[in-house]
């Protein structure tokens, strides 16, 4: 078994916001994150598998690139996570939650058992890993 990783980048705006709370209560609850702001996210997706003896590939990286483009970049790049995507109506777009949303999008788009890790950098000093169980 070996692992391959491909990266993708997207830029999004967001705010930590609970619609059930007033603006003042959101400010108190989430501080500066309650203000509209943005990040250059970097995503590293790691797949695991045995290379196909004929191609030497775990997966054709062009196919993986297309999946990342379709499932992640097209949904999130130059969008507002709160207003332009359906994923944060009931949860805050923390890097933890965004990483898990991306993990759920990729797990259904990739061949079964292939996803190993989703690593989402919010910036170069903060990142979240979602690790799949060992087979």
């Amino acid at each position, binding site marked *: 078994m070996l692992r391959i990783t491909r990266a993708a980048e997207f830029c999004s705006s967001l705010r930590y916001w609970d619609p059930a709370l007033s603006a003042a209560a959101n400010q108190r609850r989430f*501080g500066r994150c309650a203000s509209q702001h943005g990040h250059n996210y970097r995503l590293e997706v790691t797949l695991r598998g045995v290379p196909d003896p004929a191609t030497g590939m775990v997966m054709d990286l062009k196919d993986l690139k297309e999946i990342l483009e379709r499932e992640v970049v097209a949904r999130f790049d130059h969008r507002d996570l709160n207003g332009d995507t359906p994923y944060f109506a009931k949860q805050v777009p923390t890097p*933890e939650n965004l990483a*898990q949303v991306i993990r759920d999008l990729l797990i259904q788009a990739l061949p079964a058992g292939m996803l190993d890790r989703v690593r989402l950098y919010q910036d170069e000093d903060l990142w979240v*890993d979602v690790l799949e169980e060992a087979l």
Partner: protein
Amino acid sequence: MIRLTRRYRFAAAHVLHRHDLSADQNFSVYGKCANPNGHGHNYGLEITVGGKVDPESGTLVSIAALDECVQKHVMDRFAQCNLNEDALFATLVPTAENIARAVQDLLTDSVACEAGATLVAVRVVETARNYAEVEALASECVNR
């Protein structure tokens, strides 16, 4: 399983030498790192925590609490300092490996008690070309 890593930075001086060795022996073990007047690095410190994502806050740890914890227990102690003068390195050579272990010891309980998360790994990045990483044992805060 979900983990969160935060990167911190500190600049510190050190010299690698053992008190029980002669100057020549230290040079043969540690090379230029044994230069008696010391040298320094811009260290990167990557702290990885695990835990459960709280459904209310969407976070597995408060970044502010983690920052405060690392500031108090590591940065205030090591940043702009000579590591060899720290009591932790009185008899321990401040290699990247030993710094990683020291940080693990400084943070395991405090991350649990003060930030409510589990320290999973500590990586000390000494230069762009070398780093040391220790995986932490799970620890629960007994006083929480």
